[in-house]
């Protein structure tokens, strides 16, 4: 029973935080609201008993990526609300477009046959042990390739961040 209430609580927190990312004035507040949204999603993962993904979400997203965003905001000294808005026409069009996308996806998902076997659902697949076994047996090659991707991303970031022209 408490799972249900926690689900709605985390959902409301996540949606509120992601709306506030778009609505608030200061860039620092936006980054902190985004962190709140990620923590709410980590709560969702724990409700689904996906413990590995929940921990990785907290470490990678709420930890590393948000620190990168905060550093960028501070390095560029963006904590003054200097923002030129798009024209009202474009804003209204964008919101209507997004609403139509929402209606389309929900309308389409009403027709979906989302069957699942209820006895199957209580599983242990989200534990670190089980996911680690699969990650290092069936998905060895993608795992190694993602290491190379990280190396190239790091080289690219250093190249772009270097001062050029002197």
């Amino acid at each position, binding site marked *: 029973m408490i799972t249900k209430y926690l689900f709605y609580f985390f959902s409301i927190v996540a*949606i509120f935080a992601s709306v506030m990312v778009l609505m608030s004035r200061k860039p620092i507040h936006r980054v902190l609201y985004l962190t709140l949204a990620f923590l709410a999603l980590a709560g969702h993962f724990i409700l689904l008993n996906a413990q590995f993904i929940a921990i990785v979400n907290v470490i990678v997203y709420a930890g590393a990526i948000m620190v990168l965003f905060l550093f960028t905001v501070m390095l560029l000294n963006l904590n003054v609300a200097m923002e030129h808005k798009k024209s009202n026409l474009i804003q209204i069009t964008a919101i209507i477009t997004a609403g139509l996308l929402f209606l389309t996806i929900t309308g389409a998902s009403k027709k979906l046959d989302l069957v699942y076997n209820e006895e199957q659902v209580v599983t242990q697949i989200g534990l670190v042990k*089980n996911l680690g076994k699969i990650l290092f047996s069936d998905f060895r090659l993608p795992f190694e390739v993602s290491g190379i991707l990280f190396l190239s991303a790091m080289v690219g970031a250093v190249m772009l961040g270097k001062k050029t022209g002197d």
Partner: protein
Amino acid sequence: MQNITGTLPIIPIQHYVLFCTLMFVIGVAGVLIKRNALVIFMSIEIMLNSINLLLVAFSVYHNDPAGQIFVFFVMIVAAAEVAVGLALVVMVYRHTHSIDIDFLNKLKW
């Protein structure tokens, strides 16, 4: 520890679909409305995370671990993307003293 939340199928998976769609649409609206490059990046992160939640939900309800492995790789690619993207933002700021993407229209036409 093995099973924190007891039995799961109290929440129908349609609720997950609805919630993830709503969050994804918020991200889409952010990308369309804002001109600040950092906010556009944050909206992209919101979209990626909502899709991650949907993948995990389907993976758990269908008892298939491949969905959660896929979420792990999505997170890896998102981290790499943010590292390069923020370096690009810093470089753009150094050249134009602004992170307004509407100034970057040299290749538009």
